């Protein structure tokens, strides 16, 4: 507290009143008192008063003045903890957390035991995940205020966060001993469950189990109690007891897949037969349970006997579920990764259609052939359901024409069912005609305009066919009045909308607009990280400790979320494209027009372009510096003219590598970035990472060959490592052989064929373009993914595989139209 310039009693009293005014938000009065002190010539430069004045000005949103005053005050009184504390508060309000922490530490140097400063510091430390620092601060707080329960809890959590489990448990136990819980004391119950969680994470299983039993009467959340108990018993290997607990959990909730998995482990059910027996028992016991029936379908069926059982189980499941309509397909969608299962599904579905056509109803229990029941045993909706699921099935295996037939039959049967038009739109989408897909989705939406789901789906489909304006009008039917849909949805952090908009702009090559959307998505993620700030005090006070821990861990990994990863991948792709093909200048002069200019004019033009690019880069850097405090309006034109796009791309790569390391895209993009920067070892690292995830990935093949075909000017040691590792990646073969084997192994897959051809024509030059083109003409297109077909046509157009005659192109286009009848890309 000692300031280097202490105030006399009158001024000191005024200063105290300033503090009170600040606390009670009476800002005008506070400023008045400050003025009084400062008008006294002896104290016109009193540090602490100036600092308080600045703080109050900050609350009145006069930021520049605030900073001025505080800095002046600090300069005049470097040894005052008040000044440092105030400066820290200012930094914090501008989200400059690292700076704020430094200020608080400085303040603490002059007043080691100031509770307020310690509390503020602890919040910032946990926000910035300075966990060692957080632990120390919490320790200090406990020593200063042992009577407050928050001190104990806070310290225990800090120890937990740095994995010092034993100490944490000791602290929690000490706290618990002082507690006298009331009946139905929910906070105490949460505390006990948190304590138990720490014990379990520490691996002290026996202790955790005893702890659960001793405190059973006080633990009110029975579900969590049971789940914890099951977890401990299983980890201790006490399978019989665990099984009992898991069975009681299943009785509570038969649909929880996790419980079913636990039950399988407890019963040591390894083989498919034993698992099926388990599921059968459950189905017997719980007649209406869906999960055991569904889970049975997802097992491995290896032998012919088992496969017959699968067929029977699936048959019963489908028949019972047909009358649910569209959701039935959703529940079996995940089976489609297994080719033989798809064949069984197809066979069964077609048989249902035959039954319907013969007048029998697949959903009714099988009646004997000569039934005395009424002859129209066919329920009215059954034909509808069978057509729907067949349409969904054909669409999923890529036979869009067949799918269309069935959905049209369904629409003919019941033209008033809205879901049919949604399904038709989906079939067009998957078949490659986004324009028609949007049209049919609009039709569906118009049939029930009160349905927000339909509205959102329609908005998405409009964005998918690049009708951005129409999409905004559609979305605005449900967004706030008076504000444009784009603005309101951004405010509401509607990430799917931003993501689809970005993609639409990217397709239209409006890179600046796309980047703006990607940055907006990034900002939302930053906001989500910001939002946790208030919970540090709140959760500790309310004792919701388990949820708090869960939230902290969630926030740590938040940028691994699909929406961020998609935005980052998009942004990286755009920056790589901007590096390869920079955007033309404002004057929009193309290469041929530039020929008309004289040399001097050309030079002037080029220097103007360079200046503009440099200005854009500077603005970009400035934007990022001030980003934290003042999020600026993003200008698309500036964004797409950035001078060093590769640096920007690298900035997006960092969080991808941290949080999305299991995604192939991350490393493929890393490779492309390092290729342009000429960093062979980093390229190698990226290729190895893709190899670890998916060794047969088509793009990986192209990357490896590209890397092997280029000579780098590097030190000998580096060259040796490169050669060795590449050799290993290519399975010990040389490049040409590697390519040949890759083609052999994957000759039935069009994407792989394309990459192999590309590699051998462009990089290795072992195949003449005509041979490659012939291979493509002869390729079997049916059942291949649509994007590969489009890629193929593009490559042939560009002349990558030599010049093709018009006739060859037409024949191939015809074949494409047969393989993908709905796609608009081949017209």
């Amino acid at each position, binding site marked *: 507290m000692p300031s280097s310039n202490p105030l006399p009693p009158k001024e000191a009293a005024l200063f105290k009143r300033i503090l009170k005014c600040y606390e009670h938000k009476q800002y005008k009065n506070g400023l008045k008192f400050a003025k009084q002190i400062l008008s006294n010539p002896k104290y016109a430069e009193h540090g602490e008063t100036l600092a308080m004045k600045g703080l109050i000005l900050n609350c009145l949103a006069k930021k520049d003045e605030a900073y001025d005053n505080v800095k002046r005050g600090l300069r005049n009184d470097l040894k005052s903890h008040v000044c440092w504390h105030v400066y820290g508060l200012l930094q914090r309000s501008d989200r400059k957390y690292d700076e704020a922490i430094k200020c608080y530490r400085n303040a603490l140097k002059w007043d080691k035991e100031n509770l307020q400063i310690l509390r503020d510091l602890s919040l910032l430390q946990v926000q910035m995940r300075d966990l060692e620092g957080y632990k120390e601060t919490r320790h200090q707080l406990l020593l200063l205020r042992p009577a407050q329960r928050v001190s104990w809890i806070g310290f225990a959590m800090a120890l937990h966060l740095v994995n010092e489990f034993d100490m944490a448990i000791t602290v929690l136990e000490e706290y618990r001993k002082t507690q006298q819980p009331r009946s139905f004391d929910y906070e105490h119950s949460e505390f006990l469950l948190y304590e138990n969680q720490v014990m379990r994470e520490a691996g002290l299983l026996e202790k955790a189990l005893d702890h659960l039993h001793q405190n059973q009467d006080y633990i009110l959340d029975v579900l969590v109690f049971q789940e914890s108990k099951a977890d401990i018993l299983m980890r201790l290997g006490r399978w019989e007891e665990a099984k009992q607990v898991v069975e009681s959990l299943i009785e509570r909730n038969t649909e929880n897949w996790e419980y079913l998995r636990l039950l399988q482990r407890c019963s040591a059910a390894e083989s498919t037969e034993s698992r099926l027996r388990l599921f059968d028992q459950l189905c017997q016991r719980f007649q209406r349970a869906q999960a055991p029936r569904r889970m049975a379908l997802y097992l491995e069926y290896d032998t012919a006997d088992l496969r017959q059982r699968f067929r029977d189980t699936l048959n019963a499941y489908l028949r019972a579920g047909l009358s649910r309509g569209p959701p039935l397909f959703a529940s079996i969608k995940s089976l489609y990764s297994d080719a033989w299962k798809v064949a069984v599904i197809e066979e069964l579905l077609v048989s249902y259609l035959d039954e319907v056509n013969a007048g029998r109803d697949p959903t009714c229990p099988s009646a004997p052939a000569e039934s005395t029941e009424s002859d129209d045993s066919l329920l009215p909706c059954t034909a509808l359901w069978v057509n729907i699921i067949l349409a969904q099935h054909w669409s999923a295996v890529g036979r869009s024409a067949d799918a269309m037939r069935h959905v049209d039959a369904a629409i003919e*049967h019941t033209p008033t*069912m809205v879901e049919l038009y949604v399904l038709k739109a989906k079939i067009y989408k998957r078949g490659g005609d986004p324009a028609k897909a949007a049209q049919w989705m609009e039709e569906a939406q118009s*049939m029930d305009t009160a349905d927000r789901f339909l509205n959102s789906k329609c908005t998405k489909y409009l964005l998918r066919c690049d009708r951005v304006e129409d999409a905004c009008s559609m979305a605005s039917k449900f967004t706030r009045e008076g504000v444009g849909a784009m603005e309101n949805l951004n405010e509401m952090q509607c990430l799917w909308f931003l993501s689809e908009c970005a993609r639409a702009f990217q397709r239209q090559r409006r890179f600046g607009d796309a980047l703006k959307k990607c940055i907006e998505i990034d900002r939302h993620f930053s906001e989500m990280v910001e939002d946790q700030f208030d919970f540090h005090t709140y959760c500790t006070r309310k004792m919701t400790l388990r949820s708090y821990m869960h939230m902290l861990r969630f926030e740590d990994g938040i940028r691994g979320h699909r929406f961020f990863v998609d935005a980052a991948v998009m942004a990286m792709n755009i920056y790589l494209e901007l590096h390869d093909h920079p955007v033309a200048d404002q004057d929009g002069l193309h290469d041929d027009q530039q020929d008309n200019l004289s040399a001097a004019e050309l030079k002037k033009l080029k220097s103007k372009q360079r200046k503009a690019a440099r200005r854009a880069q500077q603005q970009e850097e400035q934007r990022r510096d001030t980003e934290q405090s003042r999020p600026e309006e993003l200008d698309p034109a500036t964004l797409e003219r950035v001078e060093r796009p590769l640096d920007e791309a690298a900035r997006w790569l960092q969080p991808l590598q941290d949080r999305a390391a299991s995604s192939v895209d991350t490393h493929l993009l890393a490779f492309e970035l390092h290729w342009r920067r000429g960093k062979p070892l980093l390229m190698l690292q990226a290729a190895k990472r893709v190899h670890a995830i998916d060794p047969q990935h088509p793009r990986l093949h192209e990357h490896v060959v590209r890397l092997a075909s280029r000579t780098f000017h590097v030190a000998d040691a580096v060259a040796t490592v490169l050669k060795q590792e590449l050799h290993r990646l290519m399975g010990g073969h040389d490049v040409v052989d590697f390519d040949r084997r890759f083609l052999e192994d994957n000759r039935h897959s069009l994407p792989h064929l394309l990459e192999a051809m590309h590699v051998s024509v462009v990089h290795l030059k072992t195949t003449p373009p005509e041979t490659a083109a012939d291979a493509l003409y002869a390729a079997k297109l049916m059942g291949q993914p649509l994007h590969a077909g489009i890629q193929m046509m593009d490559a042939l157009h560009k002349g990558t595989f030599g010049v093709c005659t018009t006739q060859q192109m037409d024949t191939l286009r015809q074949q494409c139209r047969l393989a993908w009848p709905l796609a608009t890309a081949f017209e």
Partner: protein
Amino acid sequence: MIALGQVTPHNIKQLKKLNQVVFPVAYNDKFYKDVLEVGELAKLAYYNDIVVGAVCCRVDTSEGRRRLYIMTLGCLAPYRRLTIGTLMLEHVLSICERDGKLDALYLHVQVNNEAALAFYRKFGFEVIETKEQYYKKIEPADAYVLEKNLRPKEE
């Protein structure tokens, strides 16, 4: 399984689709505008939460009497003979009863529509008139007027 629901500006297109498919006659925009105003006199019939039928009526004060006129009452073909029509007609009858001041309930039926004639006769409707060339664009163009008297007969 079967239920009746309101016609709203949000779902009116489903009614339009239904009428397009069920009836050989086309109804104009004014028809649908009016339907939104008649409240309980227009209903959608749901089977398993799908719209499969609908009824639209209006109060008619022609010929010096106050009658309820059924403009459309119909159901998609696969869903007939499931008592949906009965449910809709019973709903209309209950409205008439609650109103208390309606003389009769009437409608037009194309002369060759045997199924409709049998249906309405079951509920006490009688053919009171034949309007020749009632329909403009379909054959046969004649229509019966079926009416059910709602006032008890005075002795």
